[in-house]
């Protein structure tokens, strides 16, 4: 098993010293600035993409690129398993296309150290990108997703329930609604115990319509909670465009109404995402309360699994057969895929002189090998023992079997 999370964890540590000189920002802005806008109080000059990322170390920036690649190749490999390996039983709600969001946000967080100092991430039904960005052990996640007993969660939870609190990844949640409210509770406890930790929740555009949305924002604002709500607006909930459930063009408008600072960022650009997250984290740690970040993004695959996808190719095409009211047009998919977060990150790093083309390719090859090894290890792990299903209902003991009378 070859995977080296240590270096990337260090790179992702937001508290690492940052001594690098500023870099050529305006140039970058021309590349990526198209979708930038904010509803917050801080107005950006036209073409300016913010400033925090300029001060990051090369190691940290490279780490972000590596993270994006890890998420991407984990997914492509898993999709290929689903499409070609009849013995593979795992599944996922794929995150490909959205990698820059998880990566940029988690790069601004504290992802290691004692549990009472680490920042906490709440994820959704689409968790593998968030999990990797937060630093979970990929081979163990691969094993978990294929229901192996040595998986991250012993094979109990799999795709929609992965969790690793040791890196602050509180975990996936298969339900739409509850996670943001629960995340606000973690933020509540940080404030009550005087900790400078922050809680982050990743939630889709679909979550806007859930009644919990109001509870989360209202209480976070009222109590000034250190909560960062990252709304990944990929335009669709399961089978309908978000305009079927939201009257706002920018969901951030809804948050701004509570008096919460908001940022709308290009979710395909990891640097923009990082900048917004860094500002939010700084504010939250300083007792300034919540921030709402809306990342405009898109998923390359359909809602669930790999229908419409081909092995060895990125993305899924063709209308989702269940989407009757509102389709996801193939042209829309192809247009968004032009703005690939991997490509954008790579271009930025090369443009900034952090990497050259060969260096970027080397990293990509390393990541591919790492992921291949993760699958090799994960899929060779032992299956679960049936009787163990009766464990872990409570902290101690086993519940009785009842299925045989």
């Amino acid at each position: 098993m070859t995977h080296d999370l240590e270096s990337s964890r260090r790179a992702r540590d937001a508290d690492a010293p940052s001594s690098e000189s500023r870099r050529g920002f305006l140039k970058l802005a021309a590349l990526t600035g198209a979708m930038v806008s904010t509803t917050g109080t801080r107005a950006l000059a036209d073409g300016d993409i913010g400033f925090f990322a300029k001060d990051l170390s090369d190691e940290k920036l490279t780490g972000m690129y590596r993270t994006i690649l890890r998420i991407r190749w984990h997914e492509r490999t898993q999709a290929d398993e689903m499409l070609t390996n009849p013995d593979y039983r795992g599944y996922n709600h794929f995150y490909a296309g959205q990698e820059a969001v998880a990566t940029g946000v988690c790069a601004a967080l504290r992802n290691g150290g004692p549990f009472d100092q680490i920042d906490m991430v709440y994820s959704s039904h689409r968790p593998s990108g968030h999990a990797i960005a937060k630093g979970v052990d990929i081979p163990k996640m691969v094993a978990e997703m294929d229901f192996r007993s040595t998986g991250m969660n012993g094979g109990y939870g799999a795709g929609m329930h992965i969790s690793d609190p040791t890196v602050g990844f509180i975990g996936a949640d298969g339900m739409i609604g509850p996670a943001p409210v629960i995340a606000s509770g973690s933020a509540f406890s940080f404030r009550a115990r005087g900790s400078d930790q922050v809680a982050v929740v990743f939630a889709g555009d679909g979550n806007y319509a859930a009644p919990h949305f109001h509870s989360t924002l209202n209480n976070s604002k009222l109590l000034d909670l250190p909560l960062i709500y990252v709304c990944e607006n990929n335009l669709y909930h399961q089978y309908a465009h978000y305009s079927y459930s939201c009257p706002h063009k920018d969901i951030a408008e809804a948050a701004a109404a509570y008096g919460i600072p908001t940022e709308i960022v290009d979710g395909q650009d990891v640097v923009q995402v990082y900048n917004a997250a860094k500002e939010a984290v700084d504010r939250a740690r300083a007792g300034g309360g919540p921030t709402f970040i809306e990342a405009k993004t898109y998923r390359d695959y359909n809602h669930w699994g790999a229908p419409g996808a081909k092995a060895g190719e990125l993305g899924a095409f063709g209308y989702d057969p269940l989407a009757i009211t509102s389709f996801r047009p193939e042209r829309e998919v192809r247009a968004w895929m032009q703005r690939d977060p991997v490509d954008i990150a790579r271009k930025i790093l090369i443009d900034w002189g952090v990497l050259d083309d060969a260096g970027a390719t080397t990293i990509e090859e390393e990541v591919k090998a790492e992921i291949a090894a993760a699958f090799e290890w994960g899929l060779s792990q032992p299956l679960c023992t049936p009787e163990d299903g009766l464990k872990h209902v409570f902290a101690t003991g086993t519940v009785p079997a009842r299925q045989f009378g």
Partner: protein
Amino acid sequence: MTQKSWMYSVFEAVQYEMQQDPAMTWIFELTPPVASNPGLPVINLETEFGRKRVVNTGIDENWMVSAVLGAGLAGSKAATYIPYQGALMPFQVIQNVAGKLRHKTGGIAELPVVWVIEMTGQTPGFGQQHSCYEEDSYYMHIPGVRTVIPSTPYDAKGLMHAALRSSDPVVYLYPAGLRTLTEEVPDEPYEVPLDKAAIRQEGSDLTIVSSGAGMPGVLDAVETLTGEGMSVEVIDLRILKEMDTETIVNSVAKTKRLLTVDQSYYTLAPGAEVVARAAENVEGARFKRVAFPDAPPPASPEMFTWMRLSAEGIAGAARDLV
């Protein structure tokens, strides 16, 4: 009569009632109100009745159920389809508002509403949160709401007609695992009564009581047991509220052996009520329950398939009892 799937049979009833009543509405979220069946026209409520009456909404099951309730109170027949993921999101409004409405108004409130609430198919791998087989108990405890749980396409259609024509609110539990089950189903509308259990097979050695997606496994087990010479009476509850006590008690009075079979967690599964009613009314009988353990359903297929109901588990329990 044509071979029809469960899903098609249900939508055939809904389509008919919407054609009869131009005020009737249907609210959905992710389950399109579309069904097809070999040799029959596709049913698509959205295109047939338009988006004012058939609405695709956001992820807010509590709104869906509450909106249907409000439509009913305003005199419009109304229904919604709640996917299993949201099965308990609207619980409070059904429990503490809808179920109490007729009574608290002294009989005045009319509630011609149906909430179709899915129960997951027992798909290995889905895991804890996407596994609402347990909701039958929660909804069954509520007074003032008729809770039904069909197990065949024939009953699914007939109970849907009856539910939509009733002025009582109906929780119509929809076991997703039965969606593609097929049988001969009449083309014309008909009602299956909202208060009668079905005796699926008569017998004298043992009574087995189950419901919904528990039934196929029971029928398989009974085939084996019958082959072994056991005479089993099989009762499909069909209606959880008001439960048909008479059919159960009469059967157990005859067989003196009762086995209940539930997909729901053991503690307070519907079988607890079945056993308790029989035990109160029949002396000297013997009782056993098969159910999901009091544990969430694990994702691992190895654990899960061992824990869920199986025909062998049911047959084994039956042999123990007789």
